[in-house]
C-alpha cells in the first residue's frame, strides 16, 4: 500500500509540474490542481498509513490512526478549491479582456513607440 500511495503522489506531482511549465493558463491551472491533489494525499499519508484503525479514543482499542492530518487535509482541500475557483475567474477575465491566455508578459512595444522624436 505504501508503494501504491507513494507512486500515486509521485505521478501526480510529475504530471502537475509538467503542466505548470506550459505557456497557457489552462494547462497551468490544471497542473496546479494536480499538484494540490498530490499534496492532499501526501498530507494524508504524513500521519502514517493505517487500515481499519479508529481516529477517536475508544474502549479496548490499542492502535489508532492519527486524526490530525485528516483535519489538515480538510483545510487544505477547502483552501485549494477556493483558490482554484479564484484563479479560474481571474484568468478568464484576463483572457476575455486581452484575447490572449499566455501566462508570460506580453512583448512590450509601448515604450519604444512613445520614444519617437517629438
Amino acid at each position, binding site marked *: 500500500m505504501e508503494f501504491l500511495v507513494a507512486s500515486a503522489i509521485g505521478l501526480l506531482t510529475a504530471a502537475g509540474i509538467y503542466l505548470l511549465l506550459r505557456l497557457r493558463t489552462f494547462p497551468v491551472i490544471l497542473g*496546479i490542481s494536480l499538484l494540490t491533489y498530490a499534496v492532499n494525499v501526501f498530507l494524508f499519508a504524513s500521519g502514517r498509513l493505517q487500515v481499519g484503525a479508529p481516529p477517536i479514543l475508544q474502549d479496548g482499542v490499542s492502535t489508532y490512526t492519527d486524526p490530525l492530518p485528516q483535519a489538515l487535509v480538510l483545510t487544505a482541500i477547502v483552501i485549494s478549491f477556493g483558490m482554484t475557483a479564484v484563479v479560474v475567474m481571474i484568468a478568464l477575465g484576463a483572457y476575455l479582456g486581452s484575447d490572449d491566455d499566455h501566462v508570460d508578459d506580453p512583448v512590450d512595444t509601448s515604450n519604444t513607440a512613445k520614444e519617437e522624436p517629438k
Partner: protein
Amino acid sequence: MTHWIIAPIILPAIMAPFIILAARYHLGIQRVFSVVGVLAIIAIAAGLAWQASDGTVILYQLGDWAAPFGIVIVGDRLSTLMVLLTSILALFVLLYAIGSDWDTRGRHFHALYQFQLMGIMGAFLTGDLFNLFVFFEVLLIASYGLMIHSGGDARLRAGVQYVLFNLIGSTLFLFALGAIYAETGTLNMADLAQRVQLIDETATVGIRVAAVLLLLVFAIKAAVVPLHFWLPSSYAEAPGPVAALFAIMTKVGAYAIIRVYTMIFPPDLAVTHGLQSHWLLWAALLSLLVGAFGVLAARKLDRLVAFSVIGSMGMVMVAISLFTPESIAAALYYIVHSTLAGAALFLIVDLVRTGRANLVLNAQAPVSGAALTAAVFFVAAIAMAGLPPLSGFIGKLMVLSAAYENANMAWVWAIILMSSLFIIVGFARAGSVVFWKAQSEQPAEDDAPLQMPTTLSYVAVAGLLSLLVVYTVFAGQAHRYMIATSAQLFSPEPYIETVVGTPGKLSEYDDEKEDH
C-alpha cells in the same frame, strides 16, 4: 490571560463583513469604519508592543487548549513590532486610498483591505506553522482581490501571474508541512523547536527536505532571487495604494524566515547546518544585484520602484543570512525602514501617474503638482537608495558592520556598496528625467488638463516620510530595541517555556469515563 493579543486579528475580521453587509452602498460609512478600525488596531498594537517591550512573551491559547494540541497566538518583541509597523503603514495607505479616490474605482476595497490586514496580523502573531499557512492564504486571497482592484487588461494579466505563482508557493508550503509533521508529529513552533533537537543524526533526510522546502516558500514571499519573478509586474500593475500595502507582504516572508530559522532550525543545529550561510547568503547577494540592475534598466517608473524593493529585500536577506544577533538586529532596523520607504515610493509613483500621461521614463510635459511631487520623490529616493541623512544610510551601515566579522566580508561589502551606487544612479536618472527635463517640454495641446493630486494624498505620503525622519532621529533608541529583540530571538527558551509550559484545557478521556 488577556484577550487583547487576538484583537488585531479579530477586529478586521469583524470589520470586513460589516463593511460588506451593512455599508455596502455607503462609501462614507465604509471609509469611516475602515479608518476607525485601523486606528483602533494601532492603539492595541502600541499597547501590545509596550507590554512585550520588557521581554514578556504574551500567550493566548485559543479555546483554552494547551499548546501542542491547540493553536496558540504568541506575541514577543518581534511579533508585536511587526504588528505595530503594519497597522501604522495601513493607516497612511488607507488615507492615501481615500484621498486619491482609489477606493471608488472598484467595489469592496475597504472590505478586502480589512481582510488583508487580518491575514498579515495573523501571520505575525501565530505560534503554529499550519496556522501560519492558513493566515498566508487569508492574506493572499485578499491580496488577489486588491491586486486586480478596478480591473484593466494589464492588471488582470499581472494578477494571473501573481495568483499562479502564489498558488505554487502554497502547494510547496503544504508539502513542507506534511514532511515536518511526518518527521516530528507536531506543527506547533515551540514544540517543533524541542523535537527537532531530538532527531537522530542518521535519519535526517525528511527534516532536511522540509527545512529547505520551507525556506523556499518563505523566499518566494520575500522575493529572493531566483524566486522573485512574481514581484516586478504585480507590484507595478497593482493600484498604487495596494502596492504600498504590499510593501509589508515581502516582510512577512522575511519575518517567517527569522522566526523559523532562529527558533526551529537555529544556525548551530547540525541537521540544517550551512543552509543559511551557504545558500541564503548568495541568493540574497544575487537579489541585491538583480534589484540594482533592474533599477538601472527599468524603462518605467513603477518597474523601477518594484526593482528597488527587490534590492532592499536583498539587503534585508543579506543581513538575515549572516545570522548573528548583531546582523538580525540590523535586518530588523532595515525592515522597518524599507517598509516605510517602499510604501512611500509606491504612493509617489501613483502621484506621478495622476498628473502624467504615463510612467515611461522619457521627457514629457511637467506633471501637475510637479514641485511638491518632485520634493517627496527626492526624499523617498534618498531614503530608498540609502544616502545620508535618512535611515536607509544608518541601516546599511549596520548591515556592513555586522558583516565585518564574516568570512565572506569582502563579497558582502563589495556587492552592497556597488548595488547602492547603481540604485543611486537609477533613481537620480529617473528623477531628473521625470521632473527636471520635463521643464523644457511643452504640454501637448490636444490633451485634457491632468488633475492635481488631492491634499490628503500628499498628507499620507508626507506622513510616511516624516515617520522615516523620526525613525532616523531616534535611530539609537530603535537600534537598542532591535538588539534586545534579536537577543530574545537567539535565546528562545523563555518563548518555548511559555508556550509549552502554560497549562490549559486537555482532553481527559479516562477521567470522563470514570464519571459515567
